[in-house]
């Protein structure tokens, strides 16, 4: 590419619409240097030239998805010395999957577990509801229905990602991360992560087109999937604020502008609806609309300062991580949380503020109560999966090194997952 073209491209991309200058010059310089190299993804609202080729996307997504499941099946089959499909899905269903299994079969508990006070009120309803519908419609077992729901969502996520990502390599990297990568078994078994990633991606895709009514409806589903899904409301607000400032209007006039725009107003009112409907249900069921939050006490989650929790986790325990028999590894969780925060910071550098703020809140909120489960929360953040895949795809060399490494790294994790290693929970 000629240098004049590159300069024009930078000029067009960053300065055409008189964006407010929010960044210190050094950060902007780093960003522009990377952009001149043609290796950095722009904001999510950039048009995708790859997305129009659904068949091309299918030729990447489908084979990788199918291969990944064969791969998982082979690894778990060899490990368990049992290649039956029942063994495969049973060996994948660990920890919280068992809670979803109970919910898909029996709904929400009236009384908690007598010994530890835990109850399934902590788990949001959309995913088990979908699995329950699949179960009834196709007369499947609860576990099969959960597995089908997760895998269908994971497959659909690949197609939504194809609409967002700009090139073939990035889509391949995304699919490898999602289907083969470390902890990818969360997207293959009875966990809410697949649906959460799918809905998050769909929200940001639609938000990038500023289709606020659609994003409000999708965000309502997201907030019925996991509690932090409600933070999409903040992402919508930030996207609207970005547009408002781009038009040269003052921040003081923003509240009025929101009220005057029925689409944005609708999106902001609708996005948290999933959470509030669940709260209403909990009130009718138990008499406590905040039961989903109160029951966290039984998992030792109580409010704290996230940075303190993160630093303590990084500095305590050993680096044996999840390999220690029966011991929960705080440091393993903390490393994932740190990686997620670094990638979130990178989103900020790229000025992808809606995605950055959503990711930040989705990490910080659970981190403010406990370090537990952070690997799952980190891997289940769609904007981070997107940026990681774009980074991997930015160099041929990193593609060649990262993708096999990602696939290989999942093998021991998968084996440990099957053996119910506590640190992976």
């Amino acid at each position, binding site marked *: 590419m000629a240098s004049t073209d590159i300069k024009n491209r930078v000029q067009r991309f960053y300065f055409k619409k008189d964006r407010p200058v929010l960044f210190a010059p050094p950060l902007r310089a780093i960003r522009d240097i990377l952009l001149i190299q043609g290796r950095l993804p722009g904001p999510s609202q950039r048009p995708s030239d790859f997305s129009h080729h659904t068949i091309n996307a299918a030729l990447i997504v489908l084979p990788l998805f199918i291969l990944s499941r064969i791969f998982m099946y082979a690894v778990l089959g060899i490990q368990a010395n049992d290649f039956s499909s029942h063994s495969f899905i049973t060996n994948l269903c660990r920890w919280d999957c068992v809670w979803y299994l109970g919910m898909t079969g029996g709904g929400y508990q*009236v*009384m*908690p*577990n*007598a*010994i*530890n*006070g835990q109850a399934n009120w902590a788990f949001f309803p959309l995913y088990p509801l979908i699995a329950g519908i699949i179960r009834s419609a196709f007369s499947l077992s609860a576990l099969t229905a959960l597995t089908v729901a997760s895998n269908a969502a994971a497959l659909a996520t690949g197609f939504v990602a194809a609409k967002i990502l700009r090139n073939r390599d990035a889509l391949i990297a995304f699919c490898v991360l999602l289907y083969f990568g470390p902890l990818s078994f969360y997207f293959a078994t009875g966990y809410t992560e697949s649906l959460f990633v799918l809905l998050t991606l769909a929200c940001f895709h639609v938000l990038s087109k500023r289709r606020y*009514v659609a994003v409000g409806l999708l965000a309502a589903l997201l907030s019925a999937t996991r509690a932090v899904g409600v933070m999409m409301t903040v992402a919508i607000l930030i996207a609207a604020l970005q547009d408002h400032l781009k038009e040269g209007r003052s921040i003081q006039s923003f509240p009025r502008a929101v009220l005057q725009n*029925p*689409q944005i*107003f*609708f999106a*902001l*009112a*609708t996005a*948290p*609806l999933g959470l*509030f409907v669940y*709260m*209403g249900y909990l*009130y009718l069921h*138990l*008499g*406590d*609309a*905040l*039961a989903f939050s*109160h*029951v966290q*006490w*039984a998992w030792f989650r109580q409010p704290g300062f996230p940075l303190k929790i993160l630093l303590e986790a990084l500095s305590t325990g050993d680096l044996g991580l999840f390999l220690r028999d*029966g*011991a929960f590894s705080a440091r393993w969780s903390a490393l994932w949380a740190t990686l997620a925060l670094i990638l979130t910071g990178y989103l900020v550098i790229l000025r992808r503020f809606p995605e950055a703020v959503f990711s930040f809140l989705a990490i910080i909120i659970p981190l403010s109560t406990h370090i537990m489960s952070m690997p799952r929360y980190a891997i289940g953040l769609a904007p981070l999966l997107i940026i990681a895949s774009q980074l991997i795809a930015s160099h041929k060399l990193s593609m060649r090194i990262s993708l096999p490494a990602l696939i290989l790294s999942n093998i021991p994790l998968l084996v440990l997952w099957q053996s119910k290693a506590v640190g992976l929970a």
Partner: protein
Amino acid sequence: MENKTPRSIKSGILLYAMALAFIAFELFILALTRYPQVSEEYRAYYITHTAPCPPLRRGRSYKLGTTVSLTSAADPSARNYLACNWSKANEEGTWTEKSYSKIYMSLRPPEGDLIMKLGILGFAGERNNQEIEVSVNGTVLTTWTLPTRQSGEAELTIPQAVASDGNLQVQFRTLHPSVLAGSGLSGSSNQVGMLVKWFLIDKAAR
């Protein structure tokens, strides 16, 4: 200024109406969060965190004279008699964990006093004795002093008055919870008080 067609005005009004309805619903639910309609036990455990044990439903029915084993080889449904802080069952029995543990059940309203017997092993770390305060349905009945690491049998007389309706909640309060690590004993990574191997409730001899 943007031209608005009648259709866009209509859809705008519809969106406002729906958004306002949603906001009203969300505010209503938010208001409900201030007034939970829950039992005292629920409130104390989940909301104010003043109770050590979760709320319990009516206990599993128990026939007087039945010995319930709490070892890993026993019927797993025996755990349905346990509430609040117990370890997993091991070959020897099940440890009480942290400060409070309960055994609960429902039985036919007794016509006289009852006697509860337990096969136990006390553990108090470096101390010589573990002390367990035992209460039934909220009434403190006794405090056992258990020599550490010694197996034995403990007995508790339950007056008819505290178990008149047939619901029993026997609470063990461990006064010196201790960790097993380094003791040569195993079965829990939490602080423990005593290992319960079995228990039995029967009519007290008159």
